[in-house]
């Protein structure tokens, strides 16, 4: 895999998340917002948004994580998926505008699976979607409500997001593989 370009550095990521945090509380009553990060890299992004909403509005919104491994539709297609992690939703979804957070929006299948997880936990008032990067190539009728950066890509390209909490630095880069990824 060959690095083509770095497209967001730590400062740009922080600026995008600040804007998204403002957009979330502009669109919804802050007291009715709940944030849910999709494992793995949606989790630190959700935590950053949580801190920013607290800073701007003084509201400590509920925050949780979902693991979608058990809800994927490609169990038998991919030879390997990561070890299943627990879903942690320590609050009732009832009455909340739940914002799902992930790093990259691509086919939409992960988001579809994450919505199914939320449905099993209760009836949220609404489910919204925030992503750091939207790279296109949707395979399902899904769109993001909040986007950090739109990055047009080809199927041969891969978007790599790193988070300080997991990988040591905040960065978004675009890579090219020899063969198509899909």
């Amino acid at each position, binding site marked *: 895999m060959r690095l083509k370009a770095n497209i967001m550095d730590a400062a740009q990521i922080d600026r995008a998340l600040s804007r998204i945090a403002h957009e979330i509380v502009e669109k919804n009553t802050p007291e009715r917002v709940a944030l849910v990060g999709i494992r*793995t890299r949606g989790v630190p992004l959700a935590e950053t948004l949580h801190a920013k909403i607290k800073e701007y509005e003084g509201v400590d919104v509920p925050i949780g994580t979902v*693991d979608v*491994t*058990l*809800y994927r539709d490609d*169990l*038998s297609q991919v*030879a*390997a*998926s*990561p*070890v*299943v*992690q*627990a*879903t*942690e939703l320590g609050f009732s979804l009832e009455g909340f505008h739940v914002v799902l957070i*992930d*790093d*990259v*929006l*691509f*086919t939409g299948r*992960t988001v579809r699976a994450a919505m*199914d997880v939320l449905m*099993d*936990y*209760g009836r949220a008032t609404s489910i919204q979607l925030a992503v750091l990067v939207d790279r296109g190539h949707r395979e399902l009728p899904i769109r993001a409500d909040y986007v950090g950066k739109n990055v047009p890509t080809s199927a041969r390209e891969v978007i790599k997001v790193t988070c300080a909490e997991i990988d040591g630095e905040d960065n978004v880069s675009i890579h090219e593989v020899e063969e198509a*990824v899909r």
Partner: protein
Amino acid sequence: MTDAVAAARETSESSADDGVTLNDDLTSIADLTRDQIELILDTGDHFREISERPIKKVPALRGKTIVNLFFEPSTRTRTSFEIAGKRLSADVQSISASTSSVVKGETLLDTAQNIEAMAPDILVMRHKSAGSADFLARHCSAAVVNAGDGAHEHPTQALLDALTIRQAKGSFEGLRVAIVGDIAHSRVARSNVICLSKLGADVVLAGPPTLMPMHANALGAEIHTSMDHAIADADVVMMLRIQVERGGNLNLPSTQEYFRLYGLTEERLALAKDDAVVMHPGPMNRGVEIASSVADGPRSLIMNQVTNGLAVRMAILFLLAGGGSRNVEATS
């Protein structure tokens, strides 16, 4: 899973994945590596949460068929496998010996081939003959899970015991685990010795000489005939069931005498470490191998074992059906 199918699968998948995965069948702990055991425990740990949800079901195994073949009586293990399959959305069918055509004289191979013709994905079997699970695996393309084969192995019990110990103690290094009772007839003891040794614990076996297997040393555990010696300084005391239903064929003078010499009482438990925990695979004979005050006491993990049994079996079914391995990143 037949060898031909396994070989075909291996060539198509091995290059795509350098993470840890399970083998095609789970018939014994002896066949598992330490990494595979830990993959099952880690996955099982996370599956416990599903049973605490408002909707206790995930769609992971939707469209998969699991057949439970129980040629020996079982309530706990069979129910555990049934619920595990159902919580993962698989279609589960259980067949027990009294309702099967075994009573009409059908051989195991014929039964297996007939069920195979209905294309199940996973077969879970308990059978009185040692080696029957491997036999089934050789003749069926479905993944086979051994739910106990004679006095050979009971791998899912050992895995749920290991998960329970890990939750209570954190790790296995340097742990002293005493297993007490009818070692000779116990597949639970065999699987546990193999599993715990692979994980780094020291295992001590104790029981009357008449219930000790002929070549107990081959298991690689310390052997005692005195229970007090065996449980001294133990971190975990695991009591085995005396098969009282075998009546006069127990190789014991009486169950009362057995309780006096090998029963786990509060006085005896005091010989173990202060934070020692008590386990029993069930079903218990209170007053034969364990006193009620210990079984229901604060150090008993017996109910945790049952809860973990469900989580571990969910993990095994999920992993055998192709989900989850280590060191691999998902795509968004």
